[in-house]
Structures are given as structure tokens and as C-alpha cells.
């Protein structure tokens, strides 16, 4: 009763918010500061290059296209066996759900995740990546704002 009249329960709450008033905010000011994603982060997908930089590792087997739940990959290849290489490789990132099955299923490690995630675009076409665009360095599209 006395406790209730003295509003102890309310004062505990007030004390807690007052305490946090003097602690440092945890906000990360997004375009000015950025958090680095962890290594496993599933961002935009990229075609990996061979070690000798003579082209992409992809052998156009079509496993990724078959496995993709949202059917956003299109692959056409030429050549036979180990010489096989992709002629057409499209990923439609407007449909991609970033589940990572294509990267997981690829037998030669031909696809990899980047840490690029700022894919909000005015132009839908921009998100239709073809084979040339899939080999570019995604870093250049990252949004950076100077203070």
C-alpha cells in the first residue's frame, strides 16, 4: 500500500530511462557509417574467375538454374566436357531470394557471394545481370556519402 502510494513501480521505470539517457547511443548512421557484413553474408551473386584469369570458372552445367527456387537463373553453354563455358548467364536479381542454393550446388565453385547489398534501384532493368555484368566489381556500386 505504501509502496503503491509512493509510486515505487513508476519510479523504477523512470530511473531506467534516465540511466539510458546518459549512455551512448547504439545507432549506426547508415550512409555515413556502415557495418561490415560477416564473411558468410549472402549479398549479390557474382561469377568467379579462374585462377589464371582466363575466364569464368563456370562450366555451364545448369545445376544452379535447375536448383533455383525462384527460377531466376538462365544458362546456355557451348563446348564439351571440361572445355564447356557459358555463353549466356543471366541472373534476375529482382526475382532472386538470396537463398544461396546456386552457390551451394555449383560443382566447380563458379558462383560466389559478395557483400554488396544495396540493390534498391529505380530501374528494374539494372537488376537483370548478364554475363558481363556478373563479372564486374560490385564495390563500385556501393553507396558512400561523405560527411
Amino acid at each position, binding site marked *: 500500500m505504501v509502496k*503503491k502510494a509512493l*509510486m515505487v*513501480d*513508476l519510479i*523504477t*521505470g523512470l*530511473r*531506467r*530511462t534516465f540511466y539510458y539517457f546518459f549512455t551512448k547511443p*547504439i545507432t549506426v548512421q547508415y550512409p555515413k557509417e556502415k557495418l561490415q*557484413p*560477416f*564473411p*558468410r*553474408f*549472402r549479398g549479390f551473386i557474382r561469377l568467379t574467375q579462374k585462377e589464371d584469369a582466363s575466364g569464368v570458372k563456370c562450366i555451364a552445367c545448369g545445376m544452379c538454374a535447375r*536448383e*533455383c*527456387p525462384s527460377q531466376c537463373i538462365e544458362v546456355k553453354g557451348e563446348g564439351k566436357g571440361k572445355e564447356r563455358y557459358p555463353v549466356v548467364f543471366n541472373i534476375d536479381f529482382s526475382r532472386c*531470394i*538470396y*537463398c*544461396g*542454393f546456386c552457390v*551451394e550446388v555449383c560443382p566447380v565453385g563458379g558462383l560466389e*557471394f559478395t557483400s554488396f547489398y544495396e540493390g534498391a534501384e529505380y530501374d528494374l532493368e539494372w537488376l537483370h545481370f548478364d554475363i558481363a555484368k556478373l563479372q564486374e566489381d560490385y564495390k563500385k556500386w556501393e553507396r558512400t556519402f561523405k560527411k
Partner: protein
Amino acid sequence: MAKKIESKVIDVLKRGTPFGRLEEGDVFNENLKIEDVWINMGPQHPSTHGVLRLVLALQGERIVDMEVVIGYLHRGTEKLAEFRTYHQFIPLTDRLDYLASPAMNFGYVLAVEKLAGIEVPIRAEYIRVLMAELARISSHLLWLATHALDIGAMTVFLYCFREREMILDLFEMATGGRLITTYYRIGGVANDLPDYFLDRCEEFCEIFPKRVEDYDALLYSNRIWLSRTVNIAKISAEKGLALGLSGPSIRGSGVNWDLRRSNPYSVYDKLDFEVAVFDGCDVYARYLVRRKEMLESCKIVKQCIEWLKKNPGGEVQAKVPKVFKPPVGEVYQAVEAPKGELGFYIVSDGSQRPYRLKIRAPSFANLMSLPEMCKGHLVADVVAAIGSIDVVLGEVDR
């Protein structure tokens, strides 16, 4: 003079007022009778948690009737399953209850494994339980955040999100996804945990109980919180069971029924935890249940970390053929998702794709008890009741 005023009033009524419009032929000032006011709450309303629509019949502010209208987020997940291979359906289960995607994966992969009789490596089991419990904490944190916000305590919202952010970081570390993790695979998990994960997770388990004190300071014994939750939206155990209420919502009515205990799957029978049961039957009891569950989940996570640290290395995925074809048959597997009993019923015709897949979504069943809870209460209590049964519309509409 009086005549003049009356004609003015009739003029106004003809132009239309919030009470209605006077039509030609209506008789003014005769047989005044009390009518229910029908209010549309949602699908765009700040506290219907997504796209839930409630049609309320009000007498003043008291609710006399209520209808729940759902289907605004219907995506046909069950039908989609019939056109995906068993493996391809995993990312879609993430999107059922998007606040606890590992728990959703868990139910699905367990059902498929039961169907095909796949033995999962023990390490994978522990990792799965660890992830599912983290998901439970994260889901309950979001529930507490929005529930408190609905009742007006907005600071709790941000404190909860601060801790939830830590869990999402843990998810990102292990799985690469923050919200939609897609971590579980048929026969195990996608890959082993990164080596720094367990330490970070332990750190979280140390911090978390202290942070729960923050929420308690603002809610637990606060008289405003108590007056808004105690004896509000009561539902008895019998009524709740009859309506298919499950999970924390029914445990708030004193029914000791937790699938992790009563029907153990995975390695839950080797873990030590208490089932949170309170018998207040009201919003406050459901709050207590979830609050305690968060702490218990934290304990389970600690035990999993301990086991994983003691037994490093080992397989995390059973051998499953690339072209996965389970035998002909049907199976039902239920797990304790953060919202309640999540069941997957799969009928297989021996092909790569399920013949039929039915999801028993906990939120869907829980939502049906909402009219029962709310009748006779005030509008403000509807908000508390919705919060207390913790619906996620992605799961309700599927």
C-alpha cells in the same frame, strides 16, 4: 425560432454527419434507437501487426461482435510446394513466420526426414536446436516490443530491438542471412558454424538476462501495464483447447503442453529446461509465459554451446541423394514454434515433389480465439489481445 433551428439541424443531417446521412423519407426525431457502430480495424492500422483486418461492432467503446478477416497476405505457399522439389521448398518455409525462420525450417525438414527416414548427425541436431532457440528469443523479443508499443510503452520497443539486433548478427554470422536464414537442409544444416560464432553467442547469453531486467523495470510491476493486462482478454483452458490455441497462448491458461517436452523431437529430451506455465488466462499471464520462455531459451542455448564446444568437428549433414525422392507415404510432424504448434503434413507420391503439403500454422489457429477473447471488452483491449496471441500474418495467410 425552434422551427428554424430544427430545419437547420435537418439540413446538416442531410448533408451527412459521422452518424450517418438523413435520406429522403427518413423520419427525424422518431423512434431513436441505439445501433451498433461498425468499425473497420485494418488491414492498414498501426496495431494489427501487418494486414490483419478486424470488423468490430461497438456499443460506445464496448465490443459486442467481432469478425476476423484474413487473406491479405495469401501467397499460395501450400500450392507452390507442389511445384517445387523437396529441397527447393525450404526457402519458402522461411517466409511463413518470417520472424523465426529457423523454427519454420526446422518443422519442415523434420517432416521430410521423418518421411524419408533420414538419420541426422548429432552435431547438426545441436546446431539446429541452438538456432531454433535463438529464433524463439528473437521472435519473442519482437513480440514484446510491438506488444508494449501497442499499449503505449514505446521505449521497450527500442530496447528489445537492440537485443534482437544482436541475434540477427549471430544469424548473419552463421547463415549469411539476417531475417530469412535458410540454414536447415534435409539431413542437417547448410554448413558448420564459424569458429567465432560460439564465443559471440556465449557473450549474448551472458548479456541477455541483464537486458531482460530493462524490460522488467519498465513493465513487470508497472501499475499501468498491470491495469492494461491483468484480467484482460481472458480465455479458459477448455475454451482455448477447443479453439486449437497452442504455444505460449495456451500455456498462459495453465495448460502444461509444450511439444519440446510432451513430444520431444531432435535433442530436446537431452536438454534441461523448464516449461513456462502460468494460469492467469489473461494477457498478463501470456506476457509472463513469453518472458520466462526467453530466459529458458537462453538456458537451452547455453547448454547447446557447451555441448558444441566439448564436441568440436564432425559431420553436419547426412548423405542425401542429389535427386531426392522420398518413399510413397504421408507424414505429420509438429514442432514447437515460437507461436505455437507448427505442423507439416506431407503426402508423397514417390516423385521429387510433394503431392500435397499442408501447413498447420499456429498463428492461424490462435487467431480464431481472438473474437472469444475480445467480446465485452473495450477497443483498447483488442489491441492488447492481438498483441498477446502474437500473430504473424505471413503464417496466417500462408
